[in-house]
Structures are given as C-alpha cells and as structure tokens.
C-alpha cells in the first residue's frame, strides 16, 4: 500500500482513532459530515445555476431549472447551515455550561429529522419539479395548473420534518441551559434563562458598576439562546404555513378545489416574511455574532471587549429581528407606508448598528491579544467578518424606498447581499469553527495539508466576493433574479461570476479532500459506528 493510499484509508499519521470518541463527539461529527455533504449538494446546484446563467443547459428544462432554484437555498440553509450550526451548538452549549446535554436522544432526532426532511424535499424537486421557490408567494404554492399537489405535499412534508427537528433542538438548548443535572446542586433556572436571553446584560447597563449582577451564562451561550428564540418563532411560522398549503393540496387530491382568494395574498406575504426574516435578519446574525465572540475568546484566551454592551445588543436584537420584515415589501404598493418607513427602512438600518457592533467588539478582542499567529481559525474568522462587513451595507442600501424601486428582485439582491453574506460571512465563520473544533472533536487529528487549507481560504474568499460582485454588477445593469436570459444580455458578468463559482467549488473540493486525508476513510466510517461511554461525557478525560 502506497503512503498516499494508507493516508487516504487510515488518516494523517493514524492520529485519528474513532474508537476513542465519546458519543457526543461522534454525534457532533455526524452533524458536520452530513452538513458538509448538503453544502456540496448546494454548491453543485449553485454551479448548475451559474452555468445556466451563461448558457441554458439543454438537458435541464425550464421546470427542472426552477426546481433546482427552489431546492438550492433550502438545501443550503436547512441541510447544510442548520446542521453545521445546530450540531456545533449542541456540543458547545454543554461545554460552556459545564454540564451535560439535557437530551442526547433529542439531539439524535434533530439530526435524523433535518437530514431526512432535506433529502425528501430535495428529491421531490429533483423528480417532480415542484417549484414555488422558497418565498412561496400566495397563491403560487397552491397553483395546481403548474404544480402537482402530490409532489407539493411531499415537498412540504419534507420541510415540516426539518421544522420538527429544529423545534426539538430549541427545546434541548433551553433545557440544557436551565436544567440541573442529576446529583448536582440545584441551579437557578430563572436566572440562567434571564442571563441567556440578554435581560441581565440589558439591566446591567443601567446599574452602577458595583451593583451589576453576575452573568450566569457565558456570552456565546447567550447568543445561541437568543437565536434559538427566533428559531422557535420561525419554525412555528413555517409549520403553520406548511399546514395551510397542505390543506389546499389534500383537498385538491380529494377532488375539491379550494378558493385561493380565501387567503389575502398581502397579509400572507407579511406573515411569511415576518417568519422568514427571523432566519435572515434574526437568528443568522445573532448566531454569527455569538460564534464570532466564542471564536475570538477561544483564539485569544481573553474576555470579550465591552461584554455588557454585547449582551445588551443581543436583547435589543430581539426587537430588531421581530420588526424588520417589511424591507421585503418595499415594492409592494398596497403595503402601508408607515410599515415601509418604520420597519422597512428604520429598523433595518438598525442592523448596521447591531452587526457593526459585533464586528467592532470581535476585532477589538482580537486586537487586545496581539501578536497572534495567523492560524486557520483566525484567518477564516477574519474572512467571515469581512463578508458581513460587505453584505450588511449592501442590504441596507436596497432597504430604501427609492433604491428598492430599481434594485428589487435584481441580481444585486442575491449577489453582494445574500451570497456574500451566506458564502463569505456565514460559511467562513462556520469554517473557522470547523478548523478550531477539528482537533477537539477528533481527539487530536492532525490536518493533512496546510497548503490545501491556505488554498481553501483564498479560493473561497476570492470566489465568494468575486461571484457576489459580478452578480451585483449585472443587477445594477437590470439583470433580474429568477429569470432566464437567452440573448447573452449579461454574458460577460455571468462568465466572470461562473469562474468565481468554479473557484468556490474548487475550494470546497480542496477542503473535503484535506479532511478525508486527515481522518481517513476508515475514520469517516468509524464516526457512524456506535460510540462507547456515557452520553453525558463530552470529551474523554485524556483528550
């Protein structure tokens, strides 16, 4: 067996031994592996969409194209980002709270439901092309002249499974924060929750220095708990909407066509965007801020700069994320003007403040620990910070009554705002966490190639920013999202965006290959074998 084949099978220097992993480590690694697998799905779909924007692919018909366009963001967010983030938090919250996870079984169900639910809606789209897009603007999801009700009901059921898994995660997180482990001293559940939700931090801002209350939970746990509130609300909205759509589909299959005019399209749009924005402008920003604080703290070993302000900002974000949705309806003329101005413009502008604050606090924490070694976690963290520093102002610009008139539904929205936020801001933050947690979760596996990790960083950063920039340039020239162009109207921009997309795919391939060579194929298989030891132990005592 050559050295290469041996490394491929056994991992780098045989340092990774899956039999030493605790059940919690194995479970977290399963979240990561399946999450990365779905990221691969989303990346390949994204590349197909990029090629289609250059030249429509004859093998992929219009219905299939829009099926991919429907599945792509949902697989990316639920199948990949949710699994990566929720898996990491399932490990980190007990670690930081210094007590076991409340329910290991709930954590396993969360993984199973999200993984299976994602596969169901992806596969339904692949074969049946149910394509109302993630926005589900009423009454499109119930337009049975374009979409079959059976395919639609399977698709919606897949989404519902993801939501049930997510709801279990929310319960698990709050119970883990508040519960008292068996045999331990009783813990103050109320104070723990008040601290976790940011109320203690907010109240401390108005107390004298010597009267400030102690924080019962670390700052990253507070961020996770705060984001979990938005997850819970968002889950309720999506589940309710799914049931509503299912009612129409089941009735149709039973031979009764319900009137779609029974649902007010504008009210529905407000309701649905209120829920969806709890992801885009709520939990994502909060989880990212929490992860930045955690990584800055772990990388530097120093306390977070202006911690009380950071905690209070988490509580303020409660108000922001619940009242921000109307920026998606600035081009809806029947939408009340007061909602456009207050929610659409002013509250949205406040995100510049909350996210800018997290950006500054993280950089200041890093700065306070100079000189630092430019490790993989640090460079990816800086990439994540840059991503949001680019994407948030782009979003604030389009959340303006005047500018939205000429930007809404253009490639500007999905390029410099959405894809730079998700691919550069969010994904690089997640990569930073993955690189940091890799030795912790694997009991000391050694990264196979630093050169590949460096290539991964630069290719992902350049590919993500470049793709967003070229999509944005096309958008400013009038190129719409969710449309098909066949006359080469925006060809130069789309070719350049396609090259950047290929760079992103190459970065992912380099990263996955590096990880496989680090833990070995046998190691990957071993992660899915039953673990030994108690589920209450996070890492082995010797690790």
């Amino acid at each position, binding site marked *: 067996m050559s050295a290469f084949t041996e490394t491929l099978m056994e991992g780098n220097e045989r340092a990774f031994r899956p039999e030493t992993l605790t059940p919690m480590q194995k479970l977290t690694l399963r979240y990561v592996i399946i999450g990365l697998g779905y990221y691969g799905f989303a990346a390949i779909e994204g590349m197909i969409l990029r090629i289609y924007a250059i030249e429509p692919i004859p093998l992929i018909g219009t219905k299939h194209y829009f099926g991919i366009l429907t599945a792509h963001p949902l697989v990316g967010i639920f199948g990949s980002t949710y699994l990566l983030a929720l898996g990491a938090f399932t490990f980190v919250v007990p670690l930081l709270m210094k007590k076991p996870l409340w329910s290991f079984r709930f954590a396993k169900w969360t993984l199973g439901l999200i993984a299976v639910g994602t596969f169901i809606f992806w596969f339904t789209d692949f074969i049946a092309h149910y394509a109302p897009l993630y926005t589900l603007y009423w009454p499109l999801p119930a337009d049975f002249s374009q979409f079959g009700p059976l395919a639609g009901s399977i698709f919606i059921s897949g989404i519902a499974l993801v939501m049930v898994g997510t709801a279990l995660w929310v319960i698990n997180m709050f119970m883990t924060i508040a519960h008292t482990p068996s045999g331990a001293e009783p813990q103050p559940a109320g104070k723990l929750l008040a601290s976790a939700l940011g109320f203690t931090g907010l109240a401390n801002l108005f107390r004298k220095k010597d009267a400030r209350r102690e924080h019962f939970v670390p700052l990253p746990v507070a961020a996770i708990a705060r984001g979990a509130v938005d997850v819970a609300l968002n889950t309720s909205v999506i589940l309710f909407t799914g049931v509503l759509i299912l009612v129409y589909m089941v009735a149709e299959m039973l031979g009764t066509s319900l009137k779609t005019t029974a649902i007010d399209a504008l009210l529905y749009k407000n309701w649905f965007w209120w829920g969806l924005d709890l992801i885009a402008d709520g939990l994502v920003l909060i989880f990212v801020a929490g992860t930045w604080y955690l990584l800055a703290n772990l990388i530097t070993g120093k306390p977070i700069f202006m911690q009380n302000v950071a905690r209070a900002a988490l509580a303020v974000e409660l108000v922001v994320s619940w009242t921000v949705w109307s920026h998606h309806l600035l081009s809806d003329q029947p939408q009340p003007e007061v909602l456009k101005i207050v929610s659409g413009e002013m509250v949205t*502008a406040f995100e510049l403040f909350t996210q800018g604050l997290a950006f500054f606090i993280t950089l200041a924490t890093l700065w306070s620990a100079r*000189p630092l070694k430019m490790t993989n976690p640090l460079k990816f963290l800086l990439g994540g910070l840059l991503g949001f520093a680019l994407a948030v102002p782009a979003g604030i610009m389009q959340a303006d009554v*005047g500018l939205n008139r000429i930007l809404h539904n253009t490639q500007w929205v999905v390029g410099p705002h959405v894809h730079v936020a998700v691919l550069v801001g969010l994904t690089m933050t997640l990569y930073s966490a993955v690189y940091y947690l890799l030795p912790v979760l694997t009991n000391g596996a050694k990264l196979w190639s630093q050169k590949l990790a460096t290539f991964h960083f630069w290719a992902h950063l350049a590919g993500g920013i470049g793709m967003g920039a070229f999509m944005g340039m096309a958008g400013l020239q009038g190129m719409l999202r969710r449309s098909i162009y066949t006359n080469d109207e925006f060809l130069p921009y789309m070719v350049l965006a396609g090259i950047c997309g290929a760079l992103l795919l190459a970065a992912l391939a380099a990263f996955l290959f590096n990880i496989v060579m680090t833990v070995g194929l046998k190691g990957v298989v071993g992660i899915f074998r039953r673990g030994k030891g108690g589920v209450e132990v996070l890492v082995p005592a010797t690790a």
Partner: protein
Amino acid sequence: MVDSQTVLWGQTLIYTLYALTIICVVAWVAYQLTRGHAPPKIPTKLFYGFVAFLVVTGISLHIVTYNTIPWSPQDLHRSEAQPDQVFEISVADHRFELPSNPITIQCDQEVLFDVTSQDLTYGFGLFRADSSMLFQMQVVPGHRNDLLWTFGENGVYTIHSTEYSGPEGIDMNVPNAVRVIGCEGASAETAEGTTP
C-alpha cells in the same frame, strides 16, 4: 430630472469605494494582528464613536435618498397626487392586458400605472432597450398596485414581469409597450426592447 441610471451609477461608485476601503481595513487589521504588542486598553471613546458613526450613517442614507431621488417622495405621497394620465393594466394567466399597445406618454407628465392581478403575484417593470431597468413594482392579487412616475426622456420601454410566477411566467414580456414622446432636445428611441 434625475434618472434611475444616474442613481445606479452613484450607488455603484459609493459601494465600490466602500467595498475597497473595508477590504483594505480588514487586510490591514489582519496584518497588524500578527505584529506588535497588545495595547494597554482599547479606548471606549473609539467604540462609542464607531457606534455613533453607524447610527448616523444608517439614518442619513434614507434622508439623503428621500431628498435626491425624485420618485421617493412622489411614491410616498402618491395618494394625494392628481396624475395627468392613468393606465389601467390587468394581469391574468401570465399575460399583461394593456389599454393600448404601445402606451404613449407625453414627456414630463405625471402618469399612474394601476395594475391588478386576477390570479398570482406578478411584477411590473419597465426596461430600456439595453435591458436596464427603469422601475418595477410587485403586483399582488386582490389589491391595488399603483405606481406614479414622471418620464423625463423620450424612449421605448419593454414591460416585463419582475416577479417569479411559476415556470409559465418566464416569457411575460411585452416588447416596446411604452413609448415616451415630446421631450425637447432628444429624439425618440426606436431600438427594439430586449427580452429577458
């Protein structure tokens, strides 16, 4: 009158400058993080100054656009307007029904597009011959969707649905559907509208 092209050009310039600046700032911070020594304390004045900068920037953006983009106040106060012309347009089964084709508009007149959908959520956008967008709005079924606009240049525009309404909606175009005439110092464009 300020044209949407001018506004987009301004946005391109401002955002590009901002993007290059923030990339340089993060690159500089990354470089400095590996050098030097930790400062005794990061001044809180710097922090609060940054916070104030963010608040001022966020709010002033909307004040600036309201006072410089002509269609912003026009749109927000359209219920009080007395338009010179009103065009009632209906959309159903992925097709636009226009009062006439082309719709002819006199330069500098305030016109109202009143668009209603009979079934799905659509978009209503006007595009120049080079595919660039003049404006757009959403068309929500069961509601009045009205947009007030003043055309300051002669031209021929294509109507295109700017919202996805299912795979059958990808061909929702009416080429050369709007013709603006009568502007002084310019001849009417006759170029064919493009089809996204």
